[in-house]
């Protein structure tokens, strides 16, 4: 399987995963507290510089962000219909800055580091008796593992449409994509069970 992680030695690569995850959390909260356009614009600029520093070729970097950015633009356009432009610009800047930092953290932190760190951070929650920290870490790791897989599946289904001379429509893409993704999820779940990863085998 592919990974969203990008090999490199940038400042963000060298930062500890814990610092990155906590910074992302704090940054997200701060972004939603402020509605100052200048401040939010600076945040976008800074996070764009950080994202550019991770070592991805420019086109690849943009390609990764495209689906999320298009969603953000749609949200901003809806806002623009019902609100003044300033109010539409705020969520656009806010979500763009958040997207850029999240993409930077994801690209500079391996899935193993994510799982280990999230598991460690969730460990105190085990005292409530409601959750298993290992399972929270594993769930997050699997989400990250599946993102490129789903994109790959989407491209394969698109190519299959084209090869058969069929027009690519979201309605005909979604059903096979969902079915294949669920089938993959079943296979991975079986592998996790077979390897005793969730069963805490001693």
């Amino acid at each position, binding site marked *: *399987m*592919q*990974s969203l*992680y990008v090999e490199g030695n940038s400042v963000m690569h060298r930062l500890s995963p814990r610092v990155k995850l906590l910074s992302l959390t704090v940054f997200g909260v701060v972004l939603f507290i402020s509605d100052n356009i200048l401040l939010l614009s600076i945040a976008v600029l800074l996070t764009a510089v950080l994202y550019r520093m991770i070592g991805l070729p420019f086109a690849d970097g943009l390609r990764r962000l495209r689906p999320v950015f298009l969603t953000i633009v749609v949200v901003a356009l809806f806002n623009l219909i019902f609100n003044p432009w300033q109010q539409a610009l705020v969520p656009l800047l806010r979500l763009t800055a958040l997207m850029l930092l999240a993409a930077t953290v994801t690209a500079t932190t*391996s*899935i*193993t580091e994510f*799982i280990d760190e999230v598991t460690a951070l969730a460990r105190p929650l085990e005292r409530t008796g409601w959750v298993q920290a*290992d399972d929270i870490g594993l769930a997050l*790791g*699997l989400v990250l*593992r599946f993102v490129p897989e789903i994109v790959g599946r989407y491209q394969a289904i698109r190519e299959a449409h084209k090869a058969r001379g069929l027009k690519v429509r979201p309605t005909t893409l979604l059903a096979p994509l969902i079915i294949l993704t669920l089938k*993959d999820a079943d*296979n*991975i779940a*079986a*592998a*996790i*069970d*077979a*390897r*005793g*990863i969730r*069963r*805490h*085998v*001693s």
Partner: protein
Amino acid sequence: MGLDIRFEGAGVSFGARVALQPLTLGISGKRIGVIGLNGSGKTTFARLINGLTKPSVGRVTVNGRDTSDEKAAVADVGFIFQSPQNQIILPIVKDDIAFGLKRRGLTKAEIEAKVEGVLARFGAEALADRRAHELSGGELQVAALCSVLATGPGILILDEPTNQLDLKNRALVEGIIAGLPESAIIITHDLELIAGFERVLLFHEGRLAADAPAAEAIARYKEIAA
């Protein structure tokens, strides 16, 4: 650890559909082949052995332990799936091998030693830092084998291990299987792979149709498939 698997009237149904008729059978020995047409019950039979599927009736034991105890089944039996890419959870080979060990209370040094040990066993040290999606079919099988064998199961189930491999990778995987000290149950359509086995189980329409040396079971399989 030897191989001592017992099916005691164990069968599997999904609603009205019978995937495996109740089966009473003892399995021991180093190498067991399992053959049959698609949908004949081979994989259901194998999944019963490591507790991935629970019997609808009867029970299955491995070395005396009921496989409905999932922990026992997983500790004793390793399972290599048809598509190794679905078995590998983390993108880097050594991380994936270590992942199965992390929740077993081992220290970091012990985990590293086990990862290095299992890779060295197959002469696959060069795979340690490779990304799984860049590996060839044969290398993927080796990585999947390492991830399972690192946890030390005494019994290994391989579900179509040479499926979709070219001749070179098939020879690589066949060589590895031949040299495994662990007991192995091999489900396959590759009749050459099990040609020398003393015991081969043939499944047909959810039933055990033959339990015989390879030549006899293969001949019967060819009759069924004709």
